[in-house]
């Protein structure tokens, strides 16, 4: 009996120690993470120090004290995949706005619900936000399947969601407009760049997560129109044998071919590193990757062999190469208010910034009370808004589908950072969804404004 109690006590002690360790080191791990991009951090901190974050709001220095405007966001947060940086950055932006006048004196309160890719949980989160937290708008959703699960719910209630899309419904329904391009159109961008380099074959390899057929349809349409053969592969993630994946891709592509990857950064890194260790990186004409690869973490981990060899589609302006007011404001807000953003400067936090920007811009146009109707009408009415982070002006609009970000940069790693290889290029309307959107949206969808 004594031994049993001793065992019980030690278990509890161990659990307590784990708790304490986690508590002590979670702060250090987040600071370590931002410290991992020293080059980007140091070059921009000089710029950020001179940028006054109070320009985010309309009344600098005046704290907003009115009734809060409740907004909601749903993000995936599970071992191996975490998108919480995006709504956390949106919240940082809202915090800045709240400290500088709010929206006509009203602070914004963002309710963030996380999920573990469980459809029941995702549906429940939406209902929680609407019925318990009484949110009037949804800004910052980033989830592997949320759009599929909740799109009919948002449609029924009249919510026009501003999100960072992944699932097909984020781009194919009237009630969701994304600030990013999502896996299909981002892969289109990577494939398009490869085709422009006159490769003779394309191998498109992606993670076996929901939507592979929908995603592959874009690159397949592009390759077919260019008369270039394309091979579609999928890999179960997490990948335990990257060697066979790399060999297969290289064999299928051939010496004048291109291998285009659509994976999360850790999986893409594993494949590319395997290719390098096997000595295969020069066996194909070029390697491409959809936008998740666009992080400095990857550039640092990959090393110099990939300079000018790997071309990554970038949905958002390269932070290191862009010195605009908006980019400096983003970096400054991240520094001052973004303590819960663990990935630091990068596309995740950029997306959060952009979505929050758009939401505040829309909210500021509302004159009456902030209700579900008024807020979502304002979101829908956003037209030709210059976010400072995208190639194009951003429009929501009243269309049956939304792909407002359909023009991209291409970046390549260079000495530990991602640098621009090609400026803003429209995604080809050979992809039928892009064609459909451009027809519906008219000129709003076309002209790129960035460089």
């Amino acid at each position, binding site marked *: 009996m004594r031994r*049993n109690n001793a*065992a*019980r006590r030690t*278990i*509890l002690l*161990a*659990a307590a120690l*784990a708790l304490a360790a986690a508590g002590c080191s979670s702060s250090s791990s987040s600071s370590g993470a931002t410290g991992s991009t020293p080059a980007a951090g140091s070059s921009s901190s000089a710029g950020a120090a001179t940028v006054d974050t109070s320009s985010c709001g309309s009344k600098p220095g005046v704290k907003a004290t009115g009734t809060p405007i409740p907004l909601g966001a749903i993000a995936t*947060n*599970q*071992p191996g995949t975490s998108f919480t940086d995006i709504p956390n950055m949106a919240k940082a932006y809202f915090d800045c706005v709240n400290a500088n006048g709010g929206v006509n004196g009203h602070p914004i309160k963002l309710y*963030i*619900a*996380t*999920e*573990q*890719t*469980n*459809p*029941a*949980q995702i*549906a*429940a*989160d939406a*209902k*929680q936000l609407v*019925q*318990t937290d009484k949110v009037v708008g949804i800004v910052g959703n980033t989830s*592997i*399947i949320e759009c*599929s*699960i909740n*799109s*009919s719910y948002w449609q029924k209630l009249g919510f026009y969601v501003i999100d960072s899309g992944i699932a*097909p*419904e984020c781009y*194919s*329904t009237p009630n969701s407009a994304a600030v990013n391009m999502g896996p299909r159109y981002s892969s289109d961008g990577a494939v398009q760049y490869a085709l422009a380099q006159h490769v003779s074959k394309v191998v498109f390899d992606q993670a*076996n*997560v*929901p939507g*592979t*057929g*929908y995603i*592959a*349809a874009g690159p397949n349409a592009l390759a077919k129109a260019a008369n270039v053969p394309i091979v579609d592969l999928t890999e*179960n993630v997490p990948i335990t044998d990257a060697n066979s994946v790399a060999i297969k891709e290289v064999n299928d592509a051939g010496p004048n071919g291109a291998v285009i990857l659509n994976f999360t950064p850790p999986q893409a890194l594993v494949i590319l590193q395997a290719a390098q260790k096997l000595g295969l990186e020069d066996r194909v004409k070029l390697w491409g990757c959809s936008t998740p690869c666009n992080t400095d973490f990857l550039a640092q981990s990959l090393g110099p062999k990939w300079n000018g060899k790997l071309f990554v589609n970038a949905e958002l302006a390269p932070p290191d190469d862009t010195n605009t007011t908006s980019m400096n404001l983003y970096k400054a807000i991240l520094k001052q208010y973004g303590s819960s953003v663990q990935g630091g400067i990068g596309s995740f936090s950029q997306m959060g910034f952009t979505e929050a920007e758009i939401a505040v811009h829309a909210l500021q146009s509302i004159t009456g009370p902030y209700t579900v109707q008024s807020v979502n009408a304002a979101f829908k009415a956003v037209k030709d808004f210059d976010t400072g982070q995208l190639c194009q002006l951003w429009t929501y609009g009243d269309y049956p589908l939304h792909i407002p970000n359909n023009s991209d940069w291409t970046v390549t790693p260079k000495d530990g950072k991602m640098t621009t290889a090609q400026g803003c290029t429209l995604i080809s309307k050979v992809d039928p*969804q892009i064609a459909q959107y451009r027809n519906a949206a008219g000129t709003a969808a076309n002209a790129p404004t960035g460089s």
Partner: protein
Amino acid sequence: MRATLERASPARIARRPTRPQLIKVGITTVLLLFAFFALPELLSLYYVDTMTQVAVYSIVTLALGLLVGRVGLYSLGQAAVLAIGAWAAARLLFATTQPYPLVLLEAGLITMLAGLLIGLPALRLRGLYLALITLMLAGSITVVLATVNFPNGGHGFLGYNGGLLHIPPIRRPSIAASDPAYFRYSMVVAVLMFALVLAHIKTRPGRAWAAIRQSEPAALAAGINIWFYKLWAFALASFITGVAGGVLAGAIHYLYSINFPTQDSITLLAVTLMGGVFSLWGAVVAALLYQFLPALLNNWGVSADWLIILFGVGVLQVLTTAPAGLADQVPRDLARLGRFLGRRLRRRPGGDAE
């Protein structure tokens, strides 16, 4: 131990139920009625959806508890069996317009068939080997599912269309389309499954399982066909898990292979052990741990990782100090606490109430 020996005795004289038994049945009935009528009204839709998941997974943990607690078969493949049931139900729901109860029944039978196919060769193994081979089979099914995917309204045997822009939701029964109504529907199915298992336990299969769990050579000597009864347990567990899969399909509307990873089978075993494998209430406790606790923590903004750590601690706790799990331990601890408080209060006649 004593209880199982008692139930192993063959003939039983019909007795009038004792008072503790009546109280137990009374409490159970009151709780069930409360859950059925009152809970959907009292809880927000977030928690109603969560409780539907609790109902579904209580059937799964019931099946696992049956295998582990009653027969001594540790299965590390329960999530895969659930996936098979969900797959079958989804395929039928998309391809046919059969009424829901029929689809659930068919899903259960198909899963039972799969369980028998697995059980037939696998039951030659025992103990650790059996547990590991169920893990291997679960791993295989997970890989197959990742490739063939769940039906989403497409054509052909697999019913999967990879290029869809809008995936149609899996339908619900017409009488239970709303979330509160579907919760009640899933509760009814769960109660039926529990009743089915209870019927087994109280009759000959239950006694045979108890004998097998106690000592296989002794059971063999008593003339019990061990292999047959183990197979029966496998079949029953697979059947009810298949039905649970069908209810799950209607609850969440969309099924993805990434929602049934091999790790889930391990977590299911962990919570089933924590809940308690020797009592039916243990299955409910396990389902609450598996679905309600995460929803609660999610709401409070606590990371899901803490829950994983808790489950790990729970497994160690159960295996070293409390083999009958929470369902047994908590009432006993509460009773002990009650007695302790009673003694304290009696020691201070008319003194301060603390």
